[in-house]
Every structure is written in structure tokens, then in C-alpha cells.
């Protein structure tokens, strides 16, 4: 199976998009060999490089995507769809070379249906541009992930992204109404215009989170909301994480509908309150930011008051509005220079996990213990927060930092993989589920079988049926494909 685009194939592709919208210049191949997958960056840092694509194609229409995929299929050439290139799971890394399909020229807003609160757009549109456009007309997606400024709508769809307001407004899949998909054979499929139907299975969910392995999502209709007239935040301190988690659970299960709950574990609590609030205390083990929003101030007021009562009953210490507002106003700062991790050549990652309320604390404890046991000798840090809350459970968003990783990139990669495997296996064994907002990609693919067990054959069978030539983003999500 070839991964090369020879001159003849290049000309074929060029005839579809024109010479201005295809390139095989080495400077572009370098840029497109990476996303934000940490080991990839470590390879480059250490003077090595990842597999390069043969070319990058910039389609503008669904028809062009379809024709490019047909050509790729005819020549058995891999196709890697790419949005903003901001994922840290390696989902956009062209592992087998081939064609990178840069979707960012597919950036049109097709329709804003103010009556149904729905917006239809091409999926290469940067989310920040979509949100800006909606805001100008008084609407919002209420889907605001950390990579809001650098990811495309298609990127979020392909990885099942979550925004900071997901506790109220859901993840990306919760606001998808319908999709247009170019299948691996080049055919264009359209799902029904509304998601809550009974016309058989929900095919939206088949392609959302498939990371381009089953086709390319080219267009989407998303539910939107009126911009809230009221949004407010509040901070609380708790004596320990258990109490803080219980407060979050009660708020959610009583239907108080917060847009934000972020609960930090003991280590991160102490760092956060010291850095943000200037508080240094030994008697605190949990820090929570909660937020409420909506169209009606009195409803928001009531929800917040009821939530405060829950926190107060559990011995929480009310810190007022400032902590939450500070977080909200600076929530993206961490991702801009000065970078505290990359520039210091640390090895780092997020082992995002989700579980029911019954299991989540056990998942947290198990991960923490096993990781510290095994990796302390590497100047290892592990801590995090619980965000994305639901009526039945919450997500734990822990990060690890290795301050003294091996110099050799292969050894660094081995260590990186070992940390993920150790942490995720501890999570799965205790009821946790893989929940990486950046997708499964390269980073977690090998753990998919462990997560799904026998169920993984469903995904493999679907892949084989839809993409028998295995051209779509090969090597990702644990699917047994060429390397």
C-alpha cells in the first residue's frame, strides 16, 4: 500500500482544487507533520522529525473533498483530515504519510435559522469565528473549550470536544442537529435534519468522535442559544476533596443547572488559591468555582442561592464572586506564552477520565496512588480538577508533568506511554472511562480495546465496512491499520 503521492496523482489532485490549493513544499510538510501531541514535539526538540505527508490539499467544497477522497482511494493513499492542528492526541499527525486534507478553507456559515436556533456551517470554520459571528447577532454556541481560538468546528466534532460550560450545555455532540459526511468511497451522506427522531440509529454519533477514520464531516447544523443576559460565578473552599465533590454532586442531582462547576483536588487547590487568591492554608483540600447563567436574572439568582445553601450545609467557605470571575476572564491565559511546560522541555499530558459519582473518587485515588508509586523518581507531578459535571457523574481532568524526562525521544515516548497506560488502566479498573477531549488519536489508541473489550469489534467492523481500503486517517484510535 502506497503512502506516496507521485507526480501523476499530484496532478490529479491539482485538477480538483487548482494549483493554488495544493502544496508539497517542504516548509509546509514540516508544519503539517505535527499537531500538539507532546512526543511529536519532543522528537522535533531532539533533532528528529515525524513522518511527513506527501502533500497538503485545501478544499473549499464538499464536492472537492469527495473528489480528493476518490482519488486517494483509487491509489490507496492515506488521507488525514486536519482542522486547527491543536489536538494533543496526535490525531492529525500523518502517521502513514499521504494527503493532509486541510479543512480550513471550508469556512462558510451557510445559514443562521433564528427561529429554530440553528446554525449551519462548513466544518473548517474556526470556532472562534463562528462564535464571533453568532455573538454579533445575539447568539452563542455555549461551547467554549480551551482551544476555542485555534480549533475548527470539525476538530471538535471529530474528537467529541467539551467546553467549559458543558455542565449545562453539553458536549459538542449534544448540540449537533445534523451532519454532512464524505464517506471513504467519496459518496456524500446526510443525516436527518433533527437528532431526536425515531428513524433508526443515530448516525450522527457514529461519525462524531471518529477522528476522520470513517469519513470527513464537511458540514454541520448546530443548535445555538441566545446570549445569556446574566452569568455569575462564585468560589468556595472545602476542608477536603470528598466534601467538595459531594457539594458538586448535590448541585447537579438537584437539577440546579450550573453552567460551570470546577472542583480542584488538594494539590491543585493549594496552588490555585495561593496563586489566584493569595491564600496559604493547610486546612483546605477542595476548591470549587461554580457558575450560573440564563435569560432571567431571578432564575439564575435562585439557582445560585440554592447551590450556596448546599455548599454552606457542607461547611464550605464562600469566597464571593471574584475567584470565579478571575478564572472566567483568564481561562485561556495558560495556553499562551509564557508556556510553563513546553518551553522547559517537560513531558506532560492530561489523563482525562470520566465516571459515575459512585466511582469517581475511587478512580481519582487509584490513579494518583499508582502513578506516584511508579513515577516519583522522574520528578513527577500529578493533580487536577473535576469539570464537566452531569446528573450521573463527573469528569476528572488530571495533568501530569515529568520535569526530568529522558533525553532520548524514544525513551521519552516510552515513558509517556507508560504513564498513560498506568493511569488509564487504573481508571478503567475502577469504573473510569477514557475521556480525552483532544480525542483518542495516537496517544490512547492502544487502550481502546481495553476500554471496550469485546465491544471494540463493533468499531472495527464498521471501519472495515466503510473504509475497506483503510485510507482514512490510518493508525489512529487503535484500529488495526497499516503503519
Amino acid at each position: 500500500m502506497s503512502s506516496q503521492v507521485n507526480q501523476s496523482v499530484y496532478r490529479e489532485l491539482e485538477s480538483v482544487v487548482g494549483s493554488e490549493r495544493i502544496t508539497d513544499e517542504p516548509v509546509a510538510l514540516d508544519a503539517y507533520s505535527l499537531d500538539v501531541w507532546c512526543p511529536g514535539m519532543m522528537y522535533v526538540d531532539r533533532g528528529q522529525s515525524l513522518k511527513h505527508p506527501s502533500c497538503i490539499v485545501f478544499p473549499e467544497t464538499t464536492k472537492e473533498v469527495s473528489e480528493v477522497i476518490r482519488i486517494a482511494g483509487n491509489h490507496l493513499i492515506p488521507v488525514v483530515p486536519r482542522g486547527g492542528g491543536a489536538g494533543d492526541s496526535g490525531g492529525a499527525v500523518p502517521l502513514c504519510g499521504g494527503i493532509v486534507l486541510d479543512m480550513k478553507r471550508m469556512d462558510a456559515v451557510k445559514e443562521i435559522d433564528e427561529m429554530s436556533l440553528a446554525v449551519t456551517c462548513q466544518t473548517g470554520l474556526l470556532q472562534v469565528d463562528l462564535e464571533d459571528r453568532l455573538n454579533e447577532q445575539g447568539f452563542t454556541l455555549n461551547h467554549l473549550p480551551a482551544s476555542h481560538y485555534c480549533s475548527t468546528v470539525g476538530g471538535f466534532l471529530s474528537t467529541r470536544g467539551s467546553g467549559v460550560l458543558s455542565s449545562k450545555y453539553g458536549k459538542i455532540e449534544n448540540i449537533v442537529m445534523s451532519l454532512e459526511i464524505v464517506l471513504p468511497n467519496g459518496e456524500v451522506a446526510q443525516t436527518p435534519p433533527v437528532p431526536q427522531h425515531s428513524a433508526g440509529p443515530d448516525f450522527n454519533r457514529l461519525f462524531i468522535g471518529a477522528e476522520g477514520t470513517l469519513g470527513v464531516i464537511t458540514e454541520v447544523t448546530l443548535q445555538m442559544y441566545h446570549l445569556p443576559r446574566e452569568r455569575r460565578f462564585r468560589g468556595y473552599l472545602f476542608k477536603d476533596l470528598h466534601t467538595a465533590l459531594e457539594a458538586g454532586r448535590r448541585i447537579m442531582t438537584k437539577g440546579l443547572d450550573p453552567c460551570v462547576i470546577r472542583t480542584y483536588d488538594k494539590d491543585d487547590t493549594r496552588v490555585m488559591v495561593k496563586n489566584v487568591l493569595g491564600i496559604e492554608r493547610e486546612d483546605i483540600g477542595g476548591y470549587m468555582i461554580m457558575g450560573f447563567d440564563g435569560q432571567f436574572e431571578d432564575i439564575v439568582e435562585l439557582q445560585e442561592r440554592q447551590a450556596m445553601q448546599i455548599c454552606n450545609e457542607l461547611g464550605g467557605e464562600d469566597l464571593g464572586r471574584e475567584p470565579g470571575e478571575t478564572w472566567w476572564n483568564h481561562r485561556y491565559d495558560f495556553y499562551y506564552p509564557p508556556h510553563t511546560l513546553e518551553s522547559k522541555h517537560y513531558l506532560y499530558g492530561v489523563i482525562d477520565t470520566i465516571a459515575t459519582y459512585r466511582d469517581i473518587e475511587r478512580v481519582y485515588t487509584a490513579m494518583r496512588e499508582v502513578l506516584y508509586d511508579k513515577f516519583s523518581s522522574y520528578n513527577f507531578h500529578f493533580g487536577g480538577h473535576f469539570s464537566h459535571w452531569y446528573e450521573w457523574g463527573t469528569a476528572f481532568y488530571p495533568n501530569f508533568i515529568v520535569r526530568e524526562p529522558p533525553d532520548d525521544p524514544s525513551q521519552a515516548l516510552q515513558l509517556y506511554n507508560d504513564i498513560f497506560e498506568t493511569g488509564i488502566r487504573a481508571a478503567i479498573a475502577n469504573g473510569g472511562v477514557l475521556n480525552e477531549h483532544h480525542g483518542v488519536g495516537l496517544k490512547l489508541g492502544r487502550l481502546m480495546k481495553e476500554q471496550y473489550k469485546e465491544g471494540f469489534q463493533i468499531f472495527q467492523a464498521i471501519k472495515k465496512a466503510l473504509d475497506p481500503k483503510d485510507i482514512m486517517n490510518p493508525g489512529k484510535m487503535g484500529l488495526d491499520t497499516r503503519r
Partner: protein
Amino acid sequence: MNLTEQHVKTMDEWRFCPMANYICPTARETKNEANTPRGLALTAYLFYRGKNDFSADAVRTFYECSLGGLCKTTALDASDVPALIRAVRAEIVARKKAPQEVYRLRDRIIAHQSLSATDEQATYEPSAAADDARTLYFGTPWYSPAHEATVKSGADLLNLAEVSFSVLERRLDTGALLYELGFHDEVKTFAQAILNEIERRQVKKVIFSSAYDLRAFSVYYAELGIHIPDELKVEPLAETLREQLDQGHLKPARMISKQAAYLDPSYLVHELQIGGTSRQILTHLMQDKPVELRWQGSQTRYCGGAGLQFLYPTLARRVIARNIGELVGHRKLGLLVSECPFCVREIQQINTGFQVVDLPSLLLSTIQGGR
């Protein structure tokens, strides 16, 4: 490679960071990630590590950058991608690897002290020039008819306000663009000629018709280690005009009734941290409030892309057309005002449906006794 510690730090901070990709005017148009701040920092890093021998395609991406500077403002530290790009360009020039377009532009600037030597030449000199004045009105060399209107209107306004000023017999180029292209030695020669003239005339204050040249005095000469006398005051023309308006020396006789907006030139905001003055003048001249474009002030992302306009005019025009379309959006606009000669020049050449004018010309048109 001759990079400072700060340049290396910038490279480290940005070579994997996609957070400023969406604000880069060139990358917004090309969509090619090699054009983004991340892509450029990564390529710079590959140059630095000897993994790329300044290949022609890689070098070209550095000259496709418009040096707009929002990526610099976006960072929460002192990392400075535009400064890194200028440093890499200097290295490219030192290695004689720049694209032919760059050398042709350099030759034209050096031969003619002008960016548009083949265009109509400037003939204007202010009527009230006073050779013994201690204020020098620095009329930037000929860029285009649009820019020449700025220079002339500025001089007329200074005369109307009875500001005593001198002009140079021959327009001298500060070398701002040459510096941005990477020709540092040549800029030193240019700078010395101007500074000699300033010393000879015992100039205490320089008013720049174009803030683009003010940038040379305020930023670029310092980067080259060229000493500007501490007591020399430099300011953009807009600053002088506001002062004259405030003091009643310039009196607008009519108000502007068109729906007008002010366009913040990006380098003024991001390099010089100024830009509010011109907006204040426009507000002062208008019957109603100015129309607010998207992404202005600290978020301004457009740059006329001085080098880009002359090196790759087709790309530059695509960039500006996209940018203006995004800035204006659904707003109804009759007039767009800028104090950047490159913005005015370039926007006038695309079909926008509204009038584009430089601030001095607009102000002059409203003043009793003006044209």
C-alpha cells in the same frame, strides 16, 4: 544564526503553539500553517538547528508575513514573533538567500529613496517652510498618490496652525522597510543621513507624516544600536494635529455626516502602543459617533503589510480584501479613515464600496480655509 536570547525564547514559546494562528492576516487568507506564527517559529527553529538550509520555500514564508504584530500582543510575556521574523530575515539576507523580489525592492529603495520609483514623482514642498525652525516635519518619501496626499495635507495643516517647521530639501527614507526586509547595514546609512541633518539643523522635534517611519525611530534604530539623541522629541502627525485642535489653532468648519470608521493600523498599536489619537480626532470631526469596526484597539489584526504589498502584491490584496470584509462585516460604511499610508494605498485598490482617506486630508477638508 545570529539570534538574541530573546529571539530564541520567542522561538521556544511559539514553535508548537497554535493560539495565534487565527489572528495572522496572511495565514487567515492562505490557510497554510507554514504561514502562521507557529509555523514560522517552527521553521526558524529548524533553521537554527541546521535542519533546514534556508530553502527557498521556507525563506519565502518569512517574507509573506505582514508583520502586523497582534501575535506579539497576544502573548502574555515579552515573546515577540515579529522581532524574530525580522531577525531571521536579516540572517537570510546575510546568507544571500532572500527571494529575488526582495533584492529588487531593496535596489529600488536605495536608488530612488522611494518605493514607487516608476510612479509619478513628488514635487510638493511646504510653502511656509522655515529653515531655522527647530521642528522638522518629516515627509516620508513617495509611496503612492495616496501617501503624497497625506504628506501634503499634513504640511498644509501645520501651516494653517502656524506651526513653525522645516522640511528636508530632499526626502530621506528612514529605511523602515529596508530594516524589515533584513538589510541592516543599509538602514544604518539611511539613519545616519537623517541624524546628521537633524544635528546640523539643531532639530528638537520631529513630526512624522507617517507613523511607519516613527517606528524606525522608536523601535528599529534602537534594535540596530543607533543612538537617537535623548533630547530629541519624535511624534506622529496625528499627535501634533490633536494638540493644535485642542488649542484652537485648527478649527473645523463643518462636520462629517457620512458613516465613518477609523481603522487602527496594527503596527501603531502593537509596536508603538498608540492609535487612540486619530480616533479622537475623527470623533471630534463627526456629527455622530464613528462606526466601530470589529477587532480594533488592542485586537487590531490588520497590517497594510508594507513589504508584502511590494513583494507579493496579489497575496497582499487577497489578505486586505479578506481582512476589510471581516472588519466591516454587515456594517454600513461611507468612509474609512486611516493614518497608515500603506492601508490607504491598498484599500483604495480593492472594491469596497466606501471612500478611503487619510486622516490629515480629511481634517484639512473640514477646516475653514482648507481645500
